[in-house]
């Protein structure tokens, strides 16, 4: 098999892409030198370093490496492991935006770290700053049984179009785009600045449902649907129109009122749509027209890997499941149906009981890379739940994959359960945080460690943010936990009923924030109340929606 075939599913850089990336690294090297010699002030340097993924956090600089739409090759994962060893402390943190963060980078070494990324066709471009951020998508893109359109193709088109966009690199605020191509929304498109649902028209042609003005943060808002249908040819023209209206009219006085959601809310959905359509009607559409040949060229990068016909694979898997209860638990929770008969997607849990959600050591990254090379056509995905995915595993090899993952402590069978917790870095690392998120996740994970109990509780999203910026997506957790600062002490506000899916909902606040030491008990009581209220077949969200907030308020009051 030649390289292009075995590495299907990754956008392969050619000499032009590599030339661009080298030039970008050289530019940043120059910017760092100008900062160190004083030619650039911190105020001027900050947006420049942020657009190269470099934050100054609580203890050190943090480098947020882009994992474009969550897709990595084995070689890329190995290079990330190498960077973790060489420039950091041997581990990294996978984020809710499908990226990877290193916590201990030195400014002086940051250009070298970026050069090392570029060696593997990776970058940290626009993972921060008031620009168009890394585009996110369904972690099962190109593999999911229910997929209508492969969103990676359009995510890559968006990645290229938004890269150093001359007009939209100094926006009022950050701008996040998510795209999905399946009827089940696994990309949270209703809570993004722009959300896209790729679908097919009557003749099989690709088009898009377009949402805008959704978002979490200080003012959580569910997005507005701008278009039921946008043709593929007009894809980029329409993006230009939305961004241009936002760049011209978005708030620039108050950082808390600068996201596009505030503009949409303030002018009203109808007026906003009218402005976008007017801009769309007057901009030079031919110039931005997405040529079918360009789409086809990018689509070729995402051709299906060379799947083989596996007449006995499903039976083999069924036998292995019936022979081994622990494997059966893992298959029931940590897999997703594949479009190709005989194959399956395996989810690598980065949520060991008591562990740090989303963290992986260099050794684990290398090991997952090896497994992907051997069992998944060299392909790895990062999920916005901070887990990893081996997207294309043969069902008759799944048992071997499970055994290998188990030996690495990467096979906790808890995907979708109460211990599959999303947590931002919080006050342990982040300079914006008001309270810690990681140790809260660890305590909760230990409290609900018992698998029987996890499975009895059923599907439940538990999301923790260390501040109102909501990187831990607490608003859309069935149970959300938000860290707040009360006179220098850590307190936590609990919300219930949030969802990021097709039924996107912002969670409701239960009541006053509780101190760090009480959080675990409060969540435990919330779960007990749910278990006492639930009717047959209901999950937490369904029970909450039926019963309402009133019965859950007791969770805050009952003495621990």
């Amino acid at each position, binding site marked *: 098999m030649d390289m292009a075939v075995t590495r299907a599913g990754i956008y392969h850089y050619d000499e032009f892409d590599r030339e661009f990336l080298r030039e970008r690294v050289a530019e940043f090297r120059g910017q760092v030198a100008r*900062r*160190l*010699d*004083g030619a650039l002030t*911190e*105020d001027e340097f900050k947006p420049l370093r942020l657009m190269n993924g470099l934050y*100054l*956090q*609580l*203890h*050190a*600089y943090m480098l947020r490496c882009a994992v474009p739409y969550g897709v990595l090759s084995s070689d890329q994962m190995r290079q990330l492991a190498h960077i973790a060893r060489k420039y950091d*402390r*041997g*581990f990294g943190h996978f984020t809710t935006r499908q990226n990877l963060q290193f916590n201990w*980078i*030195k*400014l*002086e070494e940051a250009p070298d770290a970026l050069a090392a990324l570029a060696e593997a066709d990776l970058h940290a471009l626009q993972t921060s700053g008031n620009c168009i951020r890394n585009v996110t998508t369904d972690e099962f893109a190109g593999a999911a049984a229910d997929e209508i359109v492969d969103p990676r193709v359009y995510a890559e088109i968006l990645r290229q179009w938004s890269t150093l966009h001359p007009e939209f690199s100094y926006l009022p605020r950050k701008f996040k785009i998510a795209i999905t191509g399946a009827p089940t929304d696994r990309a949270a498109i209703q809570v993004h600045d722009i959300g896209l649902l790729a679908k097919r028209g009557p003749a099989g042609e690709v088009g898009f449902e377009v949402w805008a003005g959704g978002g979490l943060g200080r003012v959580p808002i569910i997005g507005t649907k701008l278009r039921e249908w946008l043709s593929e040819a007009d894809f980029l023209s329409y993006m230009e129109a939305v961004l241009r209206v936002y760049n011209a009219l978005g708030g620039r006085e108050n950082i808390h009122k600068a996201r596009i959601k505030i503009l949409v809310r303030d002018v009203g959905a109808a007026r906003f749509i009218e402005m976008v359509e007017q801009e769309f009607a007057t901009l030079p559409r031919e110039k931005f027209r997405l040529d079918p040949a360009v789409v086809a060229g990018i689509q070729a990068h995402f051709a299906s890997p060379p799947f083989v016909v596996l007449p006995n694979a499903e039976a083999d898997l069924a036998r292995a499941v019936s022979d081994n209860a622990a494997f059966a638990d893992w298959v029931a929770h940590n897999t997703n149906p594949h479009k190709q008969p005989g194959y399956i997607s395996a989810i690598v849990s980065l949520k*060991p009981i008591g*562990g*740090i959600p989303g*963290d*992986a*050591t260099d050794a*684990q990254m290398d090991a997952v890379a090896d497994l992907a090379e051997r069992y998944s056509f060299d392909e790895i995905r990062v999920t916005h739940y901070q887990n990893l995915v081996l997207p294309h595993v043969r069902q008759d090899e799944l048992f071997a994959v499970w055994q290998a993952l188990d030996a690495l*402590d990467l096979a906790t069978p808890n995907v979708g359960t109460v211990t599959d917790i999303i947590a931002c870095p919080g*006050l*342990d*690392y982040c300079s914006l945080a008001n*309270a*810690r998120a*990681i*140790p809260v996740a*660890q305590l909760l994970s230990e409290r609900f460690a018992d698998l029987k109990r996890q499975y009895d509780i059923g599907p439940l999203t538990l999301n923790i943010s260390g501040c109102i910026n909501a990187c831990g997506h607490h608003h859309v957790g069935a149970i959300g936990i938000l860290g707040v*600062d009360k006179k*220098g*002490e*850590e307190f936590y506000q609990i919300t219930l009923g949030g969802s990021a899916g097709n039924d996107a909902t912002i969670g409701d606040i239960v009541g006053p924030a509780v101190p760090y030491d009480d959080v675990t008990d409060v969540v435990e009581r919330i779960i007990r109340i749910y278990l006492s209220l639930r009717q047959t077949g209901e999950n937490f969200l369904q029970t909450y929606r039926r019963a309402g907030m009133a019965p859950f308020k007791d969770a805050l009051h009952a003495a621990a």
Partner: protein
Amino acid sequence: MQAKVKTKGTAQPLVVTANRLRDGRVVWLAEGGRWAEHIAEAKVFLGEAAETGLAEGAEAERTQLVVGAYAAEVTVGVAGPVPLRAREKFRALGPSVGVAA
């Protein structure tokens, strides 16, 4: 970036902290304008005197030594200054959680 007092009018003793520009490491203003890596060496300011420390912080920002200098409240024990607020506790001690398993 302007140096700032986040704790104007406090009766608490104060120390001045920042991040070193070159590597981002947390540093504390010590005697003689030195920037120490351990809070134990931090110079403690009382009341208005913190303005002097902040002026030193601002100067160190102008000369590309540090970034984001600010004053933080502490109590002074036998082992030296101890931060009052959670943020500076973690700045002084590092993350409260370990490395990935």
